[in-house]
């Protein structure tokens, strides 16, 4: 074996220099944990993977009806269902990935108290599972856009950037909650609240153009505003405009959440096995 004679030192409070190397060595565990969660999710269900399709579709139908038909909100010049679904995509991803990552440590408590591996693997695989769902929904969006004849322009190439932003946001927030959850189970109850509340304060059912000009910047403090606006801007093309100052603010906030999330998680990580 190539890595045979390496010496490892275990000491109180020592930050391991091997950590990131270990994370790389355990890279296949990311895949296996995500694979397990996907395999298990639809076992013993009658309609299986169809659930991944039904949930966003139903939410979209309700939103289109409430915001588009009843409230008659403006749609930036694209069909309302496309407007909603383009936002559903990042929001559903964020909500699922954040909730799963936040609960991931507790649901894998047994593994954490019995085997060593970089703990970062667990919430990260939860985010990967979210990405798989994202891809399924993305295929549906493509279908929907073809149905309505909406063609994206060059901006579509920037989509991966906004997806990366969503990943960092979900991961950072998930890491915070996951680490806090180990010690204080209160955060288990905060997760559904954030997800439910966030759906209404983020521009999922409506375009953020609805928000009055003077409140826009304040509104951008919600990092998902940047992500969702970015998605619409990249996918829908045409008239949808991007508020660049708000965007920069959102990106900065996402980065702060991401970096502090990793920092806090790493700080608490060593005590997980003792307190979980």
């Amino acid at each position, binding site marked *: 074996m190539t890595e045979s004679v*390496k010496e*490892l*030192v275990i000491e109180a409070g020592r930050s391991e220099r091997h950590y990131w190397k270990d994370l790389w060595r355990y890279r*296949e565990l990311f*895949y296996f944990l995500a694979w*397990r969660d996907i395999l298990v999710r639809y076992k013993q269900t009658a309609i299986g993977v169809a659930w991944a399709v039904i949930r966003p579709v139903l939410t979209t139908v309700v939103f289109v009806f409430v915001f588009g038909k009843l409230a008659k909100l403006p749609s930036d010049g694209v069909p309302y269902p496309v407007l909603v679904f383009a936002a559903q995509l990042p929001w559903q991803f964020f909500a699922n990935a954040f909730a799963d990552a936040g609960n991931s440590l507790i649901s894998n408590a047994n593994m*954490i108290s019995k*085997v060593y591996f970089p703990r970062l693997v667990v919430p990260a695989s939860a985010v990967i599972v979210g990405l798989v769902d994202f891809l399924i929904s993305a295929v549906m969006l493509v279908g929907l856009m073809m149905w309505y004849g909406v063609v994206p322009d060059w901006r579509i190439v920037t989509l991966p950037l906004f997806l990366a932003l969503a990943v960092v946001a979900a991961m950072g927030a998930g890491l915070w909650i996951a680490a806090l959850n*180990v010690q204080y189970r209160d955060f288990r109850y905060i997760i559904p609240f954030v997800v439910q509340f966030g759906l209404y304060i983020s521009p999922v059912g409506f375009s953020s153009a609805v928000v009055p000009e003077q409140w826009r910047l304040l509104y951008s403090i919600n990092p998902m505003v940047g992500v969702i606006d970015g998605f619409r801007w990249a996918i829908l093309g045409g008239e949808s405009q991007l508020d660049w100052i708000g965007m920069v603010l959102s990106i900065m906030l996402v980065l702060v959440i991401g970096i502090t999330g990793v920092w806090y998680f790493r700080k608490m990580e060593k005590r997980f*096995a003792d307190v979980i």
Partner: protein
Amino acid sequence: MTDAIVVENLSKQYIIRHQTREKYTALRDVLANGAKQFVRKLAHPFAKRENDATRETFWALKDLSFTIKQGDRVGIIGRNGAGKSTLLKILSRITEPSSGRIKIRGRVSSLLEVGTGFHPELTGRENIFLNGAILGMGKAEITRKFDEIVAFAEVEKFLDTPVKRYSSGMYVRLAFAVAAHLEPEILIVDEVLAVGDAQFQKKCLGKMEEVGKEGRTVLFVSHNMGVISQLCMTCVWLDKGQIRDIGRTESVVNAYMLNGQSSLSSERAFSDDPKKLAQLKRISLLDSKGNVVQKFDCDSSINIKLEIHVRKQLPGLRGYLGINKPDGTQVLMSDSFDAATGTALDSLPVGMNTVVVTIPPRTLGHGEYMVHIGLTSRLADNFYVDSPGTVCGFTLDDFTSQRGNRRAGFFSTLLPWQRIEI
């Protein structure tokens, strides 16, 4: 040989909170306690913190230092709560020490529990991959060893059945099989062999021995002294978080079995305990001439003299006697009801009684033995009337057989070899 593991002044401290009932803390309590303390501080600014009464520090390990050479198979023994599992958890990096340092050379794999990460909904095949990955194997490595793992676990037929439908035996076999095929330089195993049937246990032990012979280091925790003696060359005895003894397995296990008495003599007396209805007051090992001796030879009988004080007549009083090897293997077990002749203990008269149990000549093979003794009665309120436990020891020498003390086996019986005419 190089050092595989060097442990220096290792300590691990846990804080036990007496107040909180839940395993985990709730933020509500932290906030409430914080507020309470704040109010108290306002009211009595100079009072000391009272909260400390509810917190108690507990040293799971204290100031441990030892070195393990590469290729050693090391047993870790000790009573429950001695710190064995904590030590393994620190060595396998699951939890970090409070102080001290450990240097480890080589890749470590630990098996603290069989089947960690198994998912009941997944099939045997899927779980092999999942569990392998959790234990640190790559996909290619698992694929390569897949057939071997399946063969070892003997679950070929059920590979595509969810493990929740497995019998517990199959479950354990599969789990151990995955772990057994890891190829770390250092293998750490907690008591996981207590499960599974005897045949499979034997197979597992064989596998671990094999791993050891390949020059890998094995750390093994068990309460089974027989297994420890068979598998390990050196042994660490932990007691209340500290090393009580370390060295060759034979002597450490011996000392552990004697529970700290320096050696077992051939005579032992016990002080009065009026609560016991019948009590062993003295036990002595006598040779055929009636002298108390420690060394016997195989050609003479061993007389175990028991002086029993009966305070109240006990119908159904029964004595049991175990003759054990120092590693804990029981060689002989005798019950006072076994043989109808002689003095049975049933209904001994009140007062002092002397009972002799005789081991005939040429029964046990040469070596060291320990005598375990107990008195019970099904008819008494307390089934265990008196349990002195392992109290005496003796040595047996074989002077007359062809090989003498080099003769192998458990018995010293001389068998006749006869030519017969047909």
